[in-house]
């Protein structure tokens, strides 16, 4: 029988963990979120089904009707679908966080002598890697179906960087929702009813000239439109600077509004 306590007396750490330790804690907790995929490959399917399904459905069902040919539509819609998927995926942080809190895993982590931000940061790092996976899947399948990248690897990396920057800003919103919602189901319902209209009232899937003027006013402000156009430019060629700038301004605005709210909610719940 092994001895549980006493043999190597724990020595009280004299101070809070430094940056190196915080990084290590974050990576351990990111590993924790990702290793689940190993046991439950369905989770990877979960992550992948939506991109594949949307890409195929939009291209072959709507493509001809909207753009005249499936090939033209794919070139137009893939960036929009990538943006939509990024927004939906950014909300998985809320679901995971909410489960951790309601099940008590968060209390366990917070009772450990680890960096205070690591439980949040670890989850966000893992979710960011999932975003990269979804992006690669979209692009890979898109290339097979006939999508053409004209701006080379730099454009691809630029698009990815922009998407990830926006996703990180969104994760503050996800933290706020995940911390304040009473249950995982409520998180999902709230996120769906928020993200669905936001992504559809944009130029992500269709040209906007047939929309009523009041709607067009919003569409032109909607960050989804700017993100979609910036990604279009970065992958397929065309102007990028103004749309990318507006997207990043939106991201900054989201951080300014939601980061303090999220941090406060996090402290209160904790």
């Amino acid at each position, binding site marked *: *029988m*092994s*001895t*549980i*306590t*006493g*043999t*190597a*007396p*724990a*020595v*009280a*750490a*004299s*101070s*809070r*963990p430094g940056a190196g*330790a915080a990084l*290590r*804690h974050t990576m*351990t*907790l990111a*590993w*924790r979120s990702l*290793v*689940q995929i190993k*046991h*439950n490959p369905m989770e990877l399917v979960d992550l992948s089904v939506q991109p594949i399904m949307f890409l195929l459905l939009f291209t072959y069902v709507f493509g001809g009707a909207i753009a005249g040919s499936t090939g033209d539509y794919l070139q137009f819609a893939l960036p929009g679908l990538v943006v939509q998927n990024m927004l939906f995926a950014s909300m998985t942080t809320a679901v995971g966080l909410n489960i951790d809190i309601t*099940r*008590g*895993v968060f*209390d*366990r*982590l*917070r*009772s*450990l*002598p*680890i960096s205070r931000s*690591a439980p949040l940061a670890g989850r966000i790092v893992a979710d960011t890697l999932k975003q990269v996976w979804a992006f690669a899947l979209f692009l890979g399948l898109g290339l097979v179906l006939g999508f053409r990248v004209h701006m080379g690897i730099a454009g691809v990396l630029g698009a990815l960087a922009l998407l990830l920057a926006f996703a990180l800003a969104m994760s503050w919103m996800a933290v706020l929702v995940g911390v304040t919602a009473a249950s995982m189901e409520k998180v999902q319902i709230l996120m769906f009813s928020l993200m669905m209209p936001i992504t559809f009232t944009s130029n992500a899937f269709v040209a906007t000239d047939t929309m009523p003027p009041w709607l067009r006013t919003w569409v032109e402000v909607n960050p989804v439109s700017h993100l979609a156009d910036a990604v279009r430019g970065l992958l397929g060629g065309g102007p990028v600077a103004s749309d990318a700038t507006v997207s990043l301004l939106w991201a900054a605005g989201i951080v300014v509004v939601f980061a303090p709210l999220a941090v406060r909610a996090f402290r209160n719940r*904790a």
Partner: protein
Amino acid sequence: MGHAIQAEGLAKRYGETRALDGVDLEVPQGRLLGVLGPNGAGKTTAVRILATLVRPDEGGAHVAGFDVVRQAHQVRSLIGLTGQYAAVDEALTGVENLVMIGRLLGLTRAEARRRADGLLDRFALSDVGGRAAKTYSGGLRRRLDLAASLVGRPQVLFLDEPTIGLDPRSRTDLWGVVRGLQDEGVTVLLTTQYLEEADQLADDIVVFDHGKVIASGTPDALKAATGGQVLELRPSEAAHLDLVRRVVADVLDVTPEVSHGQVTAPMREFAAVSAIVRRLDDLGVVAAELSLRRASLNEVFLALTGHRAKDEEQDAEAAA
């Protein structure tokens, strides 16, 4: 300082509710304190404050000599916490749950793995260590949870209702594990609604009700101080039960309980027994069984709070 846990005047309010209303606690090194009380008595809030998860509104506490607010990080490096809800990651295997905590505590991969294997072995979880925790039964999950709180070799362990919802067999198993920890000199604060559990495990007991400590002492002292003796009297003829009840009520000046064909009542003076027997004799009632015993903690609780603690029967109903 000999006290592993020391709290003074802890108070915590949630909205209008006073979850804790001025609680003092002292647990000497290596002792097990049972915190006993019904749901909503403030037990969990006290644990959460002592385990640095919540700041008290008033008062303060030291755990292993460190202030739970100002030196929270030091406290965290010396404690283990097992909550009411089994706080293991259900998607991870038993091994991975323990390795994760070992890694977070700064062990190398190999050390964390060795530590995990040792704990799984100790808690008879080796066979299921490779399975995801979501496939575990309640008892297994609770054992894994307890193992997780021991990865860091804590000096002070908080067990917040560790056996709630467990079947009797798993509960007894867990008691064995807790006794093992006591033997190793770990200081334990255990909250429970089960009187039997506190009686079985605790060196000292404090009783919480409505955010206050309403009694404290060793299990024996508590029983002696409040209930004293309990008289149990069973008439040979069931028809005499009500007569017996009235006689006992009259002589002892209490409201006896009548159940399972016997009358039960707390009593302080031994002489009352002969008075009761004489009166029954006059009435021609024969006692088939008459016994005096020490009050159980359940009766102590009733005497202290005026209401019953959740007992095994109720719990069985709730579980069914």
